[in-house]
């Protein structure tokens, strides 16, 4: 029993750091750059992805033994698109501001490669509980990644954090909250995270 629990925790943390979808696997790049203008929209997007990824991993792992191999991808796509439609309706009803902020990218969760990728790589081969742990880990890893980017962009670009003023107007770098700034912030963050990972790998080799 103890062994099984440990493996679930491993599956869960795998998505948080080792296989982080944003900084290690580079999956779901479009929302990564598009919704990181403010921390609020990044968190909204993260909540949407957590919902869809956990539910789709659960659904896919429940039907995995009944789906013929040849048509599995279209079936997964239909499952994911239906979940996204449910999410759209829920968000418009209960969080209309965030739905407006995310715009088309709310619907585009349906073609986010993280979700189809996890369905194909993990949920189609594992049981429902492990699949949900994997989905939750990956989705939280994604949320953490985009929130980190959004924090940098919002603080230095707009001088605010979740709407609170931190840096006065004169010292803002407004290019960072324009579209172009997303590439800059993301590029710098990836290079620094690469540096940390490479240093750690070098140290392990020596030891």
């Amino acid at each position, binding site marked *: 029993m103890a062994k099984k629990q440990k493996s679930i925790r491993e599956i869960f943390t795998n998505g948080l750091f080792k296989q982080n979808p944003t900084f290690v696997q580079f999956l779901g790049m479009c929302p990564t750059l598009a919704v990181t203008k403010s921390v609020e929209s990044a968190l909204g997007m993260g909540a949407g992805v957590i919902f869809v990824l956990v539910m789709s991993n659960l659904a896919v792992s429940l039907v995995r033994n009944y789906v013929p191999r040849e048509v599995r991808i279209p079936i997964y796509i239909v499952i994911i698109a239906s979940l996204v439609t449910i999410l759209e309706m829920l968000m418009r009803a209960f969080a209309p501001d965030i739905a407006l902020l995310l715009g*088309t990218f709310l*619907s585009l969760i349906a073609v986010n490669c993280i979700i189809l990728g996890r369905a194909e790589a993990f949920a189609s081969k594992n049981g429902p509980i492990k699949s949900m742990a994997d989905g939750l880990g990956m989705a939280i890893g994604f949320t953490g990644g985009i929130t980190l980017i959004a924090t940098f962009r919002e603080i230095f670009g707009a001088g605010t954090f979740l709407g609170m003023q931190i840096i006065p107007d004169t010292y803002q770098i407004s290019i960072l909250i324009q579209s172009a700034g997303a590439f800059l912030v993301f590029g710098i963050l990836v290079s620094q995270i690469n*540096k940390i990972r490479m240093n750690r790998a070098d140290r392990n080799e020596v030891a």
Partner: protein
Amino acid sequence: MELIAIAFGAIFVNNVILQQFYGLCPFLGVSTKKSSALSMGMAVTFVITFSTIISYAIYTYILKPNDITYLSTIVFILVIASFVQLVEMFIKRFSSSLYSALGVYLPLITTNCAVLGVAIDTTVNSSKIFGGNENPTLMMVTIYALGISLGYALVIFLFSAIREEMSAYPIKRNWQGIPIALITAFIMAMIFIGFGGIV
């Protein structure tokens, strides 16, 4: 005149990659060689233009009159996936040279969010791109989709040419690959901001 403005805006000002962030995975993945970037650009142009026309027709004549527009996402995904499958079968049967050039890229396009993004933008969110016009004509939608996809092909081709040149230079280990590509995209995006003043 209005159509020219739509086309210019779609290609340069609201460039699909640099301004709207649609279709970044293939943009960073495929753009290491000029030839593959060109093939990808052609395949995307073809698929975006026709799937947008089909989605527009379905939205205007089926979903909207019956008041079931909440089904758009799922319907559009199915339309795009089956259209891509159809195109793949068609060119495999009739032109093997075209198939060897585009074949590998076609399955990738189903999950390219530019295709679904443009389909949704021209129908459900049309007031955003056509300046408050909620009932764009077929002509406007076609020109917009064509402009968006030409903008995609243009940027992915330019970007691959830059990356090909760049591969000859020494780059620090932690900047290699994706990070330096993102910084290149940043500089290109700043250049494209300049087009905003024209329209």
